[in-house]
């Protein structure tokens, strides 16, 4: 996974296309969480555009790397990426949150190729990912890796730290946590509600290899993820991000955890994301 081969244009294109799809999805359904999608979009594009060993045409391939979106409320951007990668038809995105349709408002595994686990209740994904990582280890030397994306607010949950303790104690090195550290949670700023700092030091103290990175810098994210996952202990990528990244009126605004764009706002957002 050297940076020379890093497909920067493809990743940028994937992130942009996915963001445009997600905008339409939340606009159509008046859904929340577009800000949560946009802080994570670049990292997901790096994972699905470069890092993960996956076969979209064979989603259950046993040798695949696993990805769990533990912050399941950002499902729209995950679905968009999966559709763009060919896991299921792009037309399904039209029926996001539709009655009796597969793509639920939170990440839904049932009937959705590519979604490993249903999430939406925060604080579950790291434990499940740890179990997967342990379960996949015996297979052979080059065993699959398990990547789990957490949100910063989610790290308030005790269960995250229970999983972190066990993973560290057992040196489960094919487990990679990625924290979308966008500094905003549901009812205010992380620093005001439950300050996580010194965040990297906490993970390190629990036995993790810690990498801090700009979560919107594709080269940096790909390099960091290339290094993670085989260093003799679990790795965590603390990805500094901006909630609502790429749309001026959404960036770093709590409101866009909840609001969905009006027609005018949608037009402006499309323009800003496309340019």
């Amino acid at each position, binding site marked *: 996974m050297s940076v020379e081969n890093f497909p920067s244009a493809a990743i940028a294109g994937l992130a942009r296309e996915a963001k445009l799809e997600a905008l339409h999805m939340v606009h159509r*359904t008046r*859904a929340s969480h577009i800000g949560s999608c946009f802080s994570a979009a670049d990292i997901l594009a790096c994972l699905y555009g470069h890092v993960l060993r996956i076969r979209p045409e064979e989603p259950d391939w046993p040798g695949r790397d696993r990805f769990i979106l533990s912050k*399941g409320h950002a499902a729209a951007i995950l679905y968009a990426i999966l559709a763009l990668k060919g896991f299921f038809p792009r037309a399904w995105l039209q029926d996001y*949150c*539709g*009655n*009796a*349709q*597969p*793509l*639920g*408002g*939170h990440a*839904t595994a*049932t009937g959705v190729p590519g979604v490993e686990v*249903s*999430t*939406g*209740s*925060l*604080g579950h994904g790291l434990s499940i990912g740890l179990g997967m990582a342990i379960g996949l280890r015996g297979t052979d030397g080059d065993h699959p890796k398990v990547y789990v994306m957490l949100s910063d*607010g*989610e790290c*308030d*949950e*005790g269960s995250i730290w229970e999983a972190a303790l066990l993973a560290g104690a057992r040196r489960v090195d094919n487990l990679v946590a990625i924290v979308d550290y966008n500094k905003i*949670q*549901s*009812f*205010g700023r992380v620093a005001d*509600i*439950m300050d996580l700092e010194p965040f990297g030091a906490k993970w390190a103290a629990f036995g993790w290899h810690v990498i801090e990175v700009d979560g919107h810098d594709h080269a940096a994210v790909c390099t960091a993820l290339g290094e993670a996952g085989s260093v003799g202990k679990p790795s965590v990528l603390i990805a500094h991000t901006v909630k609502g990244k790429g749309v001026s009126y959404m960036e770093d605004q*709590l409101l866009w*955890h*909840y609001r969905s764009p009006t027609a005018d706002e949608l037009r402006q957002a499309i323009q800003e994301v496309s340019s």
Partner: protein
Amino acid sequence: MRTAFLSRLVELAEQDERIHLLTGDLGFSVLEPFRDRFPDRYINVGVAEQNMIGVAAGLALTGKKVFTYSIVNFAVTRPLEQIRVDVCYHNLDVTVVAVGGGVPYGTQGYTHHGSEDVAFTRVLPNMAVMVPCDSHEAAWATTRLYQRQGPSYLRLGRGGEPTIHGAPQPDVSGPGWFEFGGTGRVAVLANGPILGECLKAAATLATHGIGVRVVSVPAVSPLPAEPLLSLARACDRLVVVEEHSRIGGLGSAVAEIVSEHPGLPPVKRLGLDSAKIKIIGDQRFLWQANGIDAAGITTAVLSWVAAAPT
């Protein structure tokens, strides 16, 4: 309902300094009036519901009256053991308040379906469980539980539900049993916003010549046994409708009492079908899919009457 609860809580907190409010990082555009008015009696504990209930128990042990706030499964299911041991076992004055009871977050998937919470809370010792149908009942239940002094669960909707009662319910000493009139030998008991569907079904059934008495029963526990038994004695059939699993909620509570008294009519339970938990859809769609919208209730009663005439 959320706003009615919060306004009433603010009123009560003006009078009673013991009242504290804890939230698990939820309540945007709902809790601000309390937060801003009583900053010293408000804590956002973060996305950490188990800790929230433990802290609430500790505060209650120092004489505070504590209300905790989150979405159904995060309010109840996640910290169920803290509720059971820390709050109920010690019989503490903590009211667990949940929004999103039933399936108002239906498109969000099963993680956000409030489908078993009444069952979980109803079996706990010392616990009162209230499921109001609209903002008037929500305000009523808030005061009722505030006065009660003990472990309580208040299950609210998502917000924006239609008002069903014509006026506020002033009698806060009442048991949690509101009759909506109607005459006939079929009684429909319900709680939560689905009561509105029962009233529509009753109107339709009347045009089929079937008289229906509709009762709102926010008090699932303790269930008002006296009014239930006298209603049952005056009817041939009891139908219970709830936006909750058919297992363990109001329907079960009614059946438990009725089954212990010989000669009382049969009970039909309508609610969410646990075989359908993977269906995603908006609230009305899921009501339909589970046969608890007005049409489904009407059909269930008509076919029951046709199959077993009295």
